C-alpha cells in the first residue's frame, strides 16, 4: 500500500500499462512537451518518445476518430481530452462511431479505446468549462463509462479500461487530482460495472460518484457525529453499466435514498438512479428518493453565484434530514440515542 494523489495514481498506471503493452499509446492536446494541462502525463514523453506520447493539433474530432481507427487495427490508444467540455467536439466520433462499430458490423471489429477526461466545476471557469456531461455518454449503449473517486479506484479502473476491448470513457475530476489515498501495490484491475458500498449503514442510502462520492462520505461522517445517523454510502464508480443490484440491495435495507450529483437535475444520473429504485425497491421505500443536483443554469463565473449553483454539503444534509423527517425516522433515531 502506498499513499499517493489521484494524479500520481493515474500517471503511474499509464506508465505501467505502457511498459506492459507496447500497443498502448497516448494522444491528446499538450500531453507531451507541455506534460498535460493537469500534468497527468508528466515525464512520459521523455521516457517513451513521440511515437507513444503524441501531441495532437487542436482537433478533437480528428484525433479522437484517429484513435478509434487505430484501435480497430488492434492498438490500445488512450486519448486525453483536456476537459469533458471539449469532448463535445468529438461527439460524432464517440457516439456514432466508437460506440457503434462493434455492434453495427456484427462483432467483427473491436474498439479498445480509453478516453480520459476530467469534469468538474467550482473553479470559476465559467459556463463552457465547468460542465459535468458524462451523462451524454452514459446514455449510449456500446460505451462503458467509469468515474473513479479515489486514487485506488483511479488505478484499478484505468487498468481495467486500458485492458478492456470496448471504448471506455474514463471520467476524472479537476477537484480530485490533488486528493490523496492509499493505493494497493498489486496489479489487480477493477471490475467495470460494479459500484462500491464505501460505508455500510442502516438509516439511509446516500449515492454519488466521482467528487460527489466524497461529499456523500463527508455528509455521512458529519451526520453520524451530529445526529447519530448510520448512513450507507454507495460510490457508483461505473455509470454504464450501472450497478442496479447494489443500489436496490442497499435501499431494501435502509428504506430511504438520496442521490447527489454534480450535473443538472433534469434527466440526470440521479433521475436514472431514482427510477431504478422506484422499479426495484418501491415497496421498500419509506420516503420519495431525493436528488441533490446543480441549479439548472449555465454555471456563472462570479464566485457567490457559482457557489450558490453547486450542490454543497449543507444541501445534502438538508435533503437527508427532509427525507428522514418525512417518515419521522430522524426524530425517532435521535430520540433513541
Amino acid at each position, binding site marked *: 500500500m502506498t499513499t499517493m494523489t489521484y494524479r500520481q495514481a493515474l500517471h503511474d498506471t499509464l506508465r505501467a500499462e505502457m511498459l506492459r503493452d507496447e500497443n498502448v*499509446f497516448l494522444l491528446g492536446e499538450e500531453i507531451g512537451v507541455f506534460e498535460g494541462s493537469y500534468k497527468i502525463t508528466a515525464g512520459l514523453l521523455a521516457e517513451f518518445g513521440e*511515437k507513444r506520447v503524441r501531441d*495532437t*493539433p487542436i*482537433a478533437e*474530432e*480528428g*484525433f*479522437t*476518430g*484517429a*484513435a*478509434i*481507427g*487505430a*484501435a*480497430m*487495427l*488492434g*492498438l490500445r*490508444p488512450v486519448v486525453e481530452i483536456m476537459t469533458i467540455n471539449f469532448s463535445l467536439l468529438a461527439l*460524432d*466520433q464517440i457516439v*456514432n*462511431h466508437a460506440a457503434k*462499430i*462493434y*455492434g*453495427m*458490423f*456484427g*462483432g*467483427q*471489429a*473491436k*474498439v*479498445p479505446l480509453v478516453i480520459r477526461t476530467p469534469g468538474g466545476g467550482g473553479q470559476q471557469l465559467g459556463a463552457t468549462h465547468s460542465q459535468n456531461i458524462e451523462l451524454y455518454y452514459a446514455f449510449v*449503449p*456500446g460505451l*462503458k463509462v467509469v468515474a473513479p473517486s479515489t486514487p485506488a479506484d483511479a488505478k484499478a479502473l484505468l487498468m481495467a479500461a486500458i485492458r*478492456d*476491448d*470496448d471504448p471506455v470513457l474514463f471520467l476524472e475530476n479537476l477537484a480530485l487530482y490533488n486528493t490523496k489515498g492509499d493505493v494497493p501495490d498489486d496489479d489487480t484491475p477493477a*471490475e*467495470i*460495472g*460494479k459500484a462500491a458500498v464505501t460505508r455500510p449503514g442502516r438509516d439511509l442510502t446516500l449515492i454519488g460518484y466521482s467528487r460527489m462520492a466524497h461529499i456523500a462520505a463527508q455528509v455521512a461522517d458529519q451526520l453520524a457525529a451530529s445526529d447519530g445517523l448510520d448512513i450507507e454510502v454507495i460510490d457508483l464508480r*461505473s455509470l454504464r*453499466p*450501472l*450497478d*442496479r*443490484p447494489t443500489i436496490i440491495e442497499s435501499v*431494501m435495507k435502509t428504506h430511504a435514498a438520496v442521490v447527489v450529483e454534480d450535473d443538472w437535475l433534469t434527466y440526470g444520473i440521479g433521475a436514472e438512479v431514482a427510477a*431504478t429504485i422506484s*422499479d*426495484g*425497491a418501491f*415497496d*421498500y421505500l419509506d420516503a420519495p428518493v431525493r436528488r441533490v443536483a446543480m441549479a439548472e443554469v449555465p454555471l456563472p463565473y462570479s464566485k457567490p453565484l457559482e457557489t450558490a449553483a453547486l450542490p454543497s454539503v449543507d444541501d445534502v444534509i438538508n435533503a437527508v434530514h427532509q427525507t428522514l423527517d418525512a417518515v419521522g425516522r430522524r426524530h425517532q433515531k435521535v430520540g433513541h440515542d
Partner: protein
Amino acid sequence: MTNQMNASRKASGPKLDATPAKPTVKAAAKKSTRVRAVKRTPAEVTRLTEFYRQMLLIRRFEERAARSYTQALIGGYCHLNLGEEAAVVGLLSALAPTDYLFTNYREHGYAINRGIDPNRVMAELYGRIDGVSKGWGGSMHMFDLTHRLLGGYGIVGGQIPLATGAALAIDYRGGSDVVMCTMGDGTTNVGAFHESLNIAALWNLPIVYVIINNRLGMGTTVEKSSAEPELFRRGAAYRIESARVDGLDPLAVAEASAQAVAVARSGKPYLLEVVSERLRGHSVVDPAKYRSETEVAQLREHDPVVTFGAQLVRDGVIDANGMAAIEHEVTARVDEAAAFAEASPTPDVATLFDYNYATPVANDSRRLPGQPLFEPAPRPDLGEDQ
C-alpha cells in the same frame, strides 16, 4: 477568383496536377471515348475484360438492389454506385489485398469489387444472417475484415478520422500497407475532412483520400457548397499532393490510383479527386427532380459501363459473343446473389444482445422493451395486498 486560382497554382509546396481541371462531365466523357491502341497483349486483354466484367457486375448488382428495394425486400436507405462503376474498379485495382479500405454509405460496389462474395453483400441488404455484417449494418454499414473493407459509414465524413487512425496504426507498427478512404464531394466541407488531412500530413501517414465528385451532394451542386469547387486543390492547404482524374474512364482512374497508392506507400498522404457521375437520385427513393431532362439524357450518353464496353468492342478486345457471355455470367451471378439473400434466414431475436460489448461486463442491460428492470420483490413485512 481567377487571380486566386493562379496564385494557388504558383504557390510553392505540393505538386498539383498541372493540367487544367475538367469540371464538366461532357469534357470528362470525351476523354473516355478516345480510341486507344488496338494492339493488345493477352495480359492486357484479360485485364481490360476483367475491368469490364467487374463494372458490369456492379451495374447489374445495383440494378437488382434497386428492384429488390422497390419490392420491399431491402429496407432503410439504399444508395447505389450506378455511374460510379469505372471509379470503383479503377480505384481498387491499385490496392493490394492487405491494404485497407474505408468508404461512405454508397459502398455496395466497393464491397463486391474488394472481393467479397456478392451473395453476402446482397444478404446484408436483405438484413439476413449471412450478410457481411450479419444483418446488423444494412446498406450503409458493410464490413469484412478478411477483405480489409473496414466499413461503410453512414455519417458523412465519419470514416475519414477512422481511416486516418488506421493509417496511424500501420505507421505505428512499421507496416507497408496503405489505407484508401473514399468520400463524396459534399464531404469535403465537414470539419473531419480538414482535421484528418492536417493530421495525416503532420504525421506522414500512408493514406489515399479519394473524393468521388459526382457534382451533387444529394441535390446541392459542388459550386453551391464548396468555395473551391476544384476539390483536389484542397490538398494544397495541407501540403498534400493531389490530382483530379476522369472517373468515367476506368483505365485513367486505375493509373491515377496506382500513383496515389505509390505515394501513400512511400509514407505520405495523397488526395485524389475522381470526377464521376450519379446516374440516379441520391438514393433509390429520390426521383432527382432537381435535374433537367437534358442533363439526364446527357448522363445516359456518358454511361461509363456502356462507353467502356463499346470501346472494348471497337478496339477488338471483346467481340459481340464475348460481351453476351459476360452479360449472361454477370446476370446469373446477381440472380444467384438475390436468391441466396432471400433464402438466408433473418437473425434470431435471441441474438439481440450478442454484440453489446466485446469484453463482457457486469450489469450489462439485456432487457427487452416490455420487460421490467427487476422482478417484483414485495416487501415481506407488508402483505401482498398492500
